[in-house]
């Protein structure tokens, strides 16, 4: 009772793994939360702030499950210590981000903070965690600032930046022979950053942007815009849409008969994990992402089988990012043998980690953002097949980061 009132979080938001929570709290308050000698009994606290309801529910669930899978493979121990999860539903609502992050940092005193999916939630979270806060691992949110102006030694990202999402699209489309291109994207922070990054490589490469059509987020009424697109008659269109919006866009695009005359491209989310929902409408759509289901490397084969065995679901790029977040935390904790007090040493181990990710080789930049290959993929029979590597070792400029 008292615990619920203190934190002020409803039972629905706040799922603690059984009674271990109380034991953990008692131990923590007696022995001090952050530093702990090797061989002690205190558990490592991993705070998770991900959306489990709303449009991004699937993403949050896959990220968490994949991270827990990685921990389970390592015997559910981090550097010899058992793990306690404090798992909160972010609902992907920016308005709640600060309060929920505060709960994890101040009340729960977590050692690690994992989240979120939504970039704006990420901004609020990183502003509070950077510096003295817990070691933070971002498994999805792509806002450039998170490893740009807001970069910090204790903040890592295992997903991507907006720049990495948009920039490789330009050369990929030029190489496919599309010079006159229309840009369509959801008109909010991330969408705008992806479009800007696309232009940065596409225009100097000799391409022409016929028109930019930003559409209101998260609206999915595309009909008027598709009529405009048809009238503009470009070679191709580059898009950013995700989730339900991506399904709708791809189906509407096909239903309007545009596939015959205009080639559809997009940031990878356009077709990622949506094969069944989009059906034939997605055939031939080309997207650019740092992962593909069909990547032929041992880590990917192992991961996909293990994820399906553990969860019954198919792995996707979000699961990969969660799995790598788990791996990165493992690397850090194993390097210091579970001593969370050895912060500098742990951070050094994490930033120099070279991971055999399901996506291929994964390293980290000075700003703690991933450096990885970006693939051009095409939907063939409902599966995202790799056409070619669109950019080798794609880095991020980390604009405004003092560590880069």
């Amino acid at each position: 009772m008292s615990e619920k009132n203190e934190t002020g979080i409803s039972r629905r938001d706040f799922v603690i793994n059984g009674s271990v929570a109380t034991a953990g709290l008692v131990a923590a308050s007696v022995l001090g939360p952050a530093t702990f000698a090797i061989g002690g009994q205190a558990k490592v606290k991993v705070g998770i702030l991900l959306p489990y309801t709303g449009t991004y529910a699937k993403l949050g669930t896959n990220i968490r499950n994949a991270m827990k899978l990685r921990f389970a493979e390592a015997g559910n121990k981090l550097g010899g210590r058992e793990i306690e999860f404090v798992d909160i539903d972010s609902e992907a609502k920016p308005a709640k981000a600060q309060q929920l992050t505060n709960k994890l940092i101040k009340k729960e005193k977590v050692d690690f903070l994992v989240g979120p999916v939504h970039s704006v939630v990420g901004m609020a979270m990183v502003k509070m965690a950077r510096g003295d806060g817990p070691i933070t691992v971002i498994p999805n949110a792509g806002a450039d600032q998170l490893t740009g102006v807001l970069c910090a030694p204790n903040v890592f990202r295992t997903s991507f930046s907006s720049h990495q999402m948009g920039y490789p699209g330009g050369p990929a489309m030029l190489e496919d022979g599309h010079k006159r291109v229309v840009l369509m994207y959801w008109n909010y922070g991330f969408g705008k950053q992806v479009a800007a990054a696309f232009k940065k490589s596409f225009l100097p490469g000799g391409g022409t942007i016929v028109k930019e059509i930003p559409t209101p987020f998260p609206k999915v009424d595309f009909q008027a815009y598709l009529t405009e697109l048809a009238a503009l008659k470009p070679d191709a269109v580059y898009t950013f849409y995700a989730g339900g919006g991506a399904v709708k866009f791809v189906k509407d695009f096909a239903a309007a008969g545009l596939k015959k005359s205009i080639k559809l491209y997009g940031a990878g989310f356009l077709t990622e994990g949506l094969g069944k929902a989009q059906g034939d409408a997605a055939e031939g759509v080309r997207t650019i992402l740092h992962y593909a289901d069909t990547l032929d490397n041992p880590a990917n084969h192992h991961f996909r089988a293990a994820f399906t065995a553990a969860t019954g679901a198919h792995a996707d790029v979000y699961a990969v990012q969660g799995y790598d977040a788990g791996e990165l935390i493992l690397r850090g904790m194993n390097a210091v043998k579970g001593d969370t007090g050895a912060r500098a040493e742990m951070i050094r181990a994490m930033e120099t980690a070279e991971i055999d990710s399901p996506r291929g080789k994964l390293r980290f930049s000075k700003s703690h953002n991933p450096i990885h290959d970006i693939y051009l993929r095409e939907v063939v029979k409902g599966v995202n097949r790799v056409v070619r590597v669109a950019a080798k070792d794609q880095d991020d400029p980390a604009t405004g980061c003092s560590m880069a």
Partner: protein
Amino acid sequence: MELSFYLVQLLNAIQYGFLLFLVASGLTLLFGIMGIINLAHGSFYMIGAYLAYWLTDVTGNLWLGILLGLPIALLVGYLVERFAISFLYQRDHLYQVLLTFALILIFNELQQILWGTDVHGVAIPAILAGSIPLTENQSYPIYRLFISAVCIALACGMSWVIQKTRLGMMIRAGASNREMVQSLGINVNRLFALVFSLGVALAAFAGMLAAPVDSVYPGMGENVLIISFVVVVIGGTGSIKGAFVGAMLIGLVSTFGKVLLPEMASVMAYALMAVILLWRPQGLFGRAR
């Protein structure tokens, strides 16, 4: 841009208006006619879409899915009315807001438990899968035209039932003076249960029909909730004609807003509502109170 471009956009606008009326029709009945504030309207829309997805998957046929889904939606409506809404008719609107907001949370949670968090799509039935060429590179899906036809039939049918039939008379009378209707020997409880169930079934029906052109995903109901209220408020509560005209106006304004004033696209519908409410606070076809 040539004339054909604007003609196609006009078609888009009308089509969008029809879709809006379809989505708002259940709300027109409950909020517009009966005066129940039903924030869970979007949830019933979502339930319809998920039922269509699920039953189409099981039976392999959208029509069969809709046929099986409608009785389920009616039953859901009936249970919600009997066990929740019926206690609040005599109370302030605020209680209805609280209750139906709680229903949103409950239905969202149920949806996740029953169907998970994946994004789904429903295939368009084969006979309506084609499209009609409009311009040299754009064509129009037949299924969308079919939705428009259903919507016109629905608008006429609702209007006829409410204005011309005995049932409609009882509904209107019950909404304006419950005690009087009761004292005339009409079972108001049963009447309201019936109407509420119908309202829920309409919302679900809209979700089922829209499922093949939309996508089916968690939280999809919230996206249609607000615009549905805007449609009913613009038209004026108590008027099906009003809701129809309101839906058409929003269709026109937001479609041409997107084309001519793209920066303002997302506020056009609300700006329209503000203007209309300044001019006629009771809505276009509402009765002044």
